[in-house]
């Protein structure tokens, strides 16, 4: 599937841009896997919390 190919490539590119790859996660969950969905979301939330806010250091700020 296209997404399965897109995400790993996106992660490689984001890593080059200094974005932690842990901020992106790809998983496959069906509508009947409610518990699994909750687990994944909680895991991801915790992971992001540990990484901290995303600070772009960019935009139109001049160095």
């Amino acid at each position, binding site marked *: *599937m296209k997404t*399965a190919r897109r995400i*790993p490539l996106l992660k490689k590119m984001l890593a080059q841009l*200094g974005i932690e790859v842990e901020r992106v996660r790809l998983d496959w969950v069906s509508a009947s896997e409610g518990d699994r969905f909750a687990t994944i979301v909680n895991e991801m939330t915790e992971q992001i919390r540990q990484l901290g806010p995303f600070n772009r250091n960019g935009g139109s700020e001049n160095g």
Partner: protein
Amino acid sequence: MAKPKLALYWAAACGGCDVAVLDTNEKILDIANLADIVFWPIAVDFKYHHVKAMEDKSIDLCLFNGAIRSTEQEEIARLLRDKSKVMVAFGACACFGGIPALANFTNREEIFQRVYHEAPSNNNEDGTIPLLQTSVAEGELELPELFDTVLTLQQVVPVEYFVPGCPPPVDLILKLVDLYASGKLPPVGAVVASDKTLCDECERIKEEKKVTRLYRPHEIIPDPEKCLLEQGIICCGPATRGGCGLRCIEANMPCRGCFGPPPGVIDQGAKLVSAIASIYQGDSEEEIKKMVEEMVDPAGTFYRFGLADSMLKRKRLQQTEGRM
């Protein structure tokens, strides 16, 4: 009636856009008949003080090339914006950041460290670096400050029109001049190029094939009639605006995106990730891993000309005490 006044300026640029204007060949004489060139440092001797003395909005058309990466460049961009009725971001650097915006993978401190400290040919034991102000025996000397982040022109001042390309092809330059001279300029914000993608305009044979491996340009000799992407060579055509005349494709080399994203695409790099993922055939984890490995330098390839214009705008560096 006085002729309209034309100004051309270069910021963090290479001079290629100015040479492109000269490449209009004998038509440069027509341009000179049409307008008075009041500022063009590569060819004409007017200085900054001449521009400062001009009245606001007295310059009718300003073609501004180059990205903004220093206080001087920002100052002149603002100065010319004040003095000009119409400001055109001319060339890939002014439009998207261009090649100089690859410096958004790094910052000023890292560049200085390399250039003035690490170089093996340096004869610089006392670690001299360029300073914004230096006292010499006779007085004071100043240098502008370099930014950590390279900006597009529009990120600094409002811009009416965009002419993409590295450099813009002669026919688009003449098209702009023509539109201006005949009073038929498009609505503000227009990009003077095609509204299609380069892929749409490319005449190579497309067979809707998928590829099972990617090739870097020196690894194979491509068939000059067939689509490069379908031969496994990364080409940015699917997510690049057309209008360039396919100059690189005709030299049997892939597109690297100097015309920026096509209409409707906000982030050229993200779109290209999608395009490459589409063309690759392979669903197993191994095949996908292989594709990712074969796709060298995705950020530097997909944002080759547009890093400053991308959603992220620059690489996020670790928090350091240096200026960010």
